[in-house]
């Protein structure tokens, strides 16, 4: 039996990439010269968009990992914060409601979502944080409540999410909108900020402590209730940011059912990368980002397959190596 260690997986992945590359090169040489340009374009698009997608997915997935790593909470309503970010952003940028400067709207949306996140934590998660199954049911309920509220308030329609800046830049022959670039840069900035926060600040240290050993952290005087609430706020802010950035740079619309895909996407990324590992979440985001774009560009009308590919990967990972790539918290047998 070949041991399923990280090393063998990495070797298999490298072998797979080499094989795929070889096949790709051979196949590239067989297609008529006229089409070669298109294929090259597609490949470049996949790479560039894969990186951009990966970055923004990482924001989303990081929020999910954060609340899981620190508080052990699997937040099924994570996608709702993604959605709320987009909706609040819409409200503050639409002439129908309050229209303000687009960047101000951005900040209002994410901060407001953060507050909502903390409130949701205090009201519905904190009481049942010990009972995992109840927590699952409740957070799904919360997600559905938000969906219903959006339907009630705005109707089951689509709403436009404006892209921040019009126009696009051409990189290596691929047209990339400024919005996408902006989204990517914002992601990078946020990662840096988050990294500094977690490694340098007192709160960050408390979060790391709780992630390592909750009991010990409590004994050291960490107020876990408050810490979790703040972590939840942070997690929802990340989700909301992702919600605005991703929606603005891709579909451009907000709808009440848009909480489900981000949730499952986050989960897919986190399972692939390994629950509880920030490194894994990062790498997982980029992998999924690439896969998503591969599906979109290579398969005709692939966009309909949406997150299905990502989910299929998740299911596959769970079957083969439930720990994911860098997982720490696993279901121990005995």
């Amino acid at each position, binding site marked *: 039996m070949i041991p399923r260690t990280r090393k063998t997986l990495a070797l298999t992945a490298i072998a797979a990439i080499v094989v795929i590359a070889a096949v790709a090169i051979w196949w590239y040489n067989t297609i008529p010269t006229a089409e070669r340009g298109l294929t090259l374009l597609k490949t470049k698009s996949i790479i560039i968009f894969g990186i951009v997608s990966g970055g923004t997915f990482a924001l989303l997935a990081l929020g999910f990992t954060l609340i899981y790593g620190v508080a052990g909470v*699997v937040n*099924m309503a994570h996608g709702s914060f993604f959605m709320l970010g987009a909706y609040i952003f819409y409200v503050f940028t639409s002439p129908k409601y309050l229209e303000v400067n687009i960047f101000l709207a951005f900040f209002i949306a994410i901060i407001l979502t953060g507050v909502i996140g903390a409130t949701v934590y205090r009201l*519905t998660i904190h*009481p*049942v944080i*010990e*009972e*995992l*199954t*109840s927590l*699952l*049911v*409740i957070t*799904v*309920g*919360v997600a*559905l*409540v938000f*969906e*219903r*509220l959006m*339907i*009630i308030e705005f109707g089951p329609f689509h709403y436009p999410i404006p892209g921040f800046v019009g126009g696009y830049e051409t990189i290596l022959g691929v047209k990339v909108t400024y919005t996408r670039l902006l989204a990517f840069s914002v992601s990078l900035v946020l990662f840096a900020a988050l990294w500094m926060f977690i490694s340098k600040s007192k709160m960050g240290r408390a979060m790391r402590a709780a992630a390592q050993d909750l009991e010990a952290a409590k004994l050291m005087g960490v107020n876990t209730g408050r810490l979790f609430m703040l972590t939840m706020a942070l997690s929802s802010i990340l989700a909301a940011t992702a919600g605005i950035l991703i929606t603005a740079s891709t579909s451009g619309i907000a709808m009440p059912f848009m909480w*489900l*895909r981000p*949730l*499952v996407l986050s*989960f*897919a990324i986190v*399972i692939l990368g390994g629950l509880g590992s920030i490194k894994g979440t990062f790498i997982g985001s980029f992998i999924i980002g690439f896969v998503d774009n591969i599906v979109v560009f290579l398969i005709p*009308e692939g966009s*309909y*397959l*949406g*997150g*299905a590919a990502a*989910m*299929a990967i*998740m*299911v596959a990972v*769970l*079957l083969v190596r*439930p720990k994911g790539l860098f997982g720490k918290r696993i*279901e121990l047998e*005995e």
Partner: protein
Amino acid sequence: MATTYLRRAYSSFAVHILDIPPRLLAFLMFLLVLSLPVTKPTEHILLLLIQASIMAIFACSWDLLVGRTGQISLGHALFFGLGAYITALLWFHYDLPVWVTIPISVLIVTGLAPLIGFPCLRVKGPYLALVSMALPIIVVSLISYFRDYTQGERGIAGLPGFFPSLPYGQRFVAEYFLTLFLLLVSSVILYRIANSRTGIVFVSILDDELASKACGINITKYKLMAFTISGLFAALAGAVSAHLLASGRSVTTASLDANLSFMVVIVAIFGGIGTMYGPIIAAYILQLIDQYVLVKIWNVPSEYHMLLFIIVIIILVLKWPRGVAKFVTDELDDLQEEREIEERGKHIWKRYRRKKRSPTPEA
């Protein structure tokens, strides 16, 4: 000859139903429900009851899987929706009659159930819940993608009904009896499985999976079994509902939606997870509340119904988290079960003592 059979049937009926108070009550209620059409109810009420019956079958199937085996399924609409879609597609593409498409659809979904269950088996708790939520989404994506074949989000309408020869007014009554009959058969089968020795193994998996393994139980086999049986009845509910006049004789991706999956969770929590009969009663009560109380009495607009239900459930679970977490509530030790085991027990005692008295060959 006939009289002996009749007498035997009656005594069996007496032992199994008449002697046991809760069952007697259920039987009387069933008679009541059966004779309802005599009172000439409105179409609206019949509609309500028909939909409740379907939800009852669905919820009962969920309860076997979640309440008795402990596999949390938050995406049970997968089976329901697949059942509905396959029967619709079979009609749409091959023009097969209802009594052919429904059994085939149920068979297909039952055959797929072990495949669906397989990834769910390797995982527990949140992973399982999430995988169960993800699977319906994958199916919806696939439906959108293959829209030429499946009609995509538009869905399929104009499905054949069950009683085309009957005049319109009587069709509702006929459907009422049909769904009631299916509910009776399904619930009896599910209940008997749940209380059989296999059902006991199911509960052992829920109670302590490790100890169950130590008793030599192949957990995977039993979990798959639970999945398949549960999927079968959920698919039945879905397939039948697609053709009911009461549900518009159409199929859309709503039959796979998270809202439907959660609705069955609400019904089951409300009725008592693990009891098997609780969800059935809850299906009726909640349907009544949803379509009658909220609409006629309190005049709540329809968008708010689901919201109210979910909020109530959230509050319930917040108040009694252990109730949901424990899954199998204390109602498992209900009067009926004790009676049954006691009956079996006394029966065995007698047989066993008789065997002991007569000379037995040494093992």
